[in-house]
């Protein structure tokens, strides 16, 4: 109604009723679910990959002090640089299919995850480690029993950040080269001035991202609830 009465510019904001109609239309002709599934798949995969790789890299850096000294300056540079700028290079390297888009989603979260998780590993109170050392624990036992569990809060908060970041990576990737997905719909809508379509996609992205975030919060409650 607000857009019908021109209180807000109807071109840019569209009208909820029109968005609703488009929603039903697209569901019925099957294209919506298709695009949604594609983007969701790419994002979730990028998210999981980015988080796992980041955590793995952090573990390796903790394990080998030498490696962390060598790699530290590279991490600083990679962190400062906007990863989406790497988009075109990724696409040329990995092709225009799913892989490069998933890689976009992953790479944006990997560096930040590595840095946050590694810092958390290093900041574990030495006395907890000392307790284990007095029992003769080796490095692997120390990692599993102290370093990793005490870093769960940091890992969870990184996961929450990564939800948002992987969406950025994937949507930008789809802007650049995709023929499918919600990002594609946004660009397509932009190119044909169909802002209703853009809005529909935005709303769907918002819903999915929120659901993912809730998923992480559920994980948080399960992992940390007792001790915090």
């Amino acid at each position, binding site marked *: 109604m607000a857009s019908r009465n021109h209180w807000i510019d109807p071109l840019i904001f569209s009208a909820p009723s029109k968005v609703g109609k488009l929603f039903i239309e697209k569901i019925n002709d099957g294209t919506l679910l298709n695009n949604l599934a594609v983007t969701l798949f790419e994002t979730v995969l990028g998210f999981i990959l980015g988080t796992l790789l980041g955590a793995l890299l952090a573990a390796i850096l903790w394990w080998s002090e030498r490696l962390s000294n060598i790699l530290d300056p590279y991490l600083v540079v990679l962190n400062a640089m906007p990863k989406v700028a790497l988009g075109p290079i990724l696409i040329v390297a990995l092709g225009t299919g799913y892989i490069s888009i998933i890689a976009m989603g992953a790479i944006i979260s990997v560096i930040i995850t590595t840095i946050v998780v590694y810092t958390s590993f290093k900041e574990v109170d030495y006395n907890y480690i*000392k307790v284990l050392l007095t*029992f*003769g624990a080796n490095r692997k036992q120390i990692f599993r029993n102290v370093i990793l*569990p005490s870093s769960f809060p940091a890992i969870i908060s990184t996961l929450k950040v990564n939800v948002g970041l992987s969406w950025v990576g994937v949507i930008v990737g789809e802007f650049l080269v995709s023929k499918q997905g919600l990002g594609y719909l946004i660009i397509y809508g932009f190119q044909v001035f169909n802002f209703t379509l853009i809005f529909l996609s935005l709303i769907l992205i918002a819903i999915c991202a929120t659901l993912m975030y809730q998923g992480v919060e559920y994980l948080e409650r399960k992992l940390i609830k*007792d001790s915090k």
Partner: protein
Amino acid sequence: MNFLSVKNINHVYFTKDQAKTALENISLTIEEGEFISLLGPSGCGKTTLLSIIAGLLKPTYGEVLIEGKSISKSKSDIGYMLQQDYLFPWKTIEENILVGLQIMNQETDHTRKQTLALLEEIGLKGVEKSYPKQLSGGMRQRAALVRTLATNPKILLLDEPFSALDFQTKLKLEDLVSNTLKEYHKTAILVTHDIGEAIAMSDRIYLLSKSPGKIAKVFEIPECLRDETPFDARQHPEYSNIFQQIWEELDNLETKPEY
């Protein structure tokens, strides 16, 4: 052969600009079942010495032997209690006290039952499923004691374990620890800066001076005090005599010129 033999320990801390001698010529022997204290002002190297005896730190020179064997081969014979409990907040009390057994691959049904029984004996029945944050400081330190005793160590190294507690809890815990150790015939080394605590709990006190850490004097605690519980020992007339002697000695050390 002595139970524990500390031979000529010297330790130097190296930094970019300087070398600081933390310990110089520390030698002492302990027999099984004895309770000795390392007493001295802050900075005299008591914790360094304890870390060396525990095998956590390699001394620049000298060696430590338990029953004739080098310390590095007898990791499982040592139990260590820190100043604070450092129980893992993400584990239940039960999981915490079993940590040592787990690391040493000694966790069996039998050892688990034994450890839980010890928990009950120490007055913490019913808290197995609780988390550390739900317990008071004294209770947590008691749980930490169970954790240390669970692996049945031959020697207990106590690094000022009561200093973070309020006075009442401290006295109660001193009695508890002393009685438990006597009951299980454990040998113990206590590091403290509290003269009263050292007198109340030990058979023998090594007074350390600082910069560099050296054994300044050894005090043998008379039998009349040794036979009492820590709480009762503090009320004994002999207590103030020894306290006075040690106090004067410490005073002398402070006023001696450092070079």
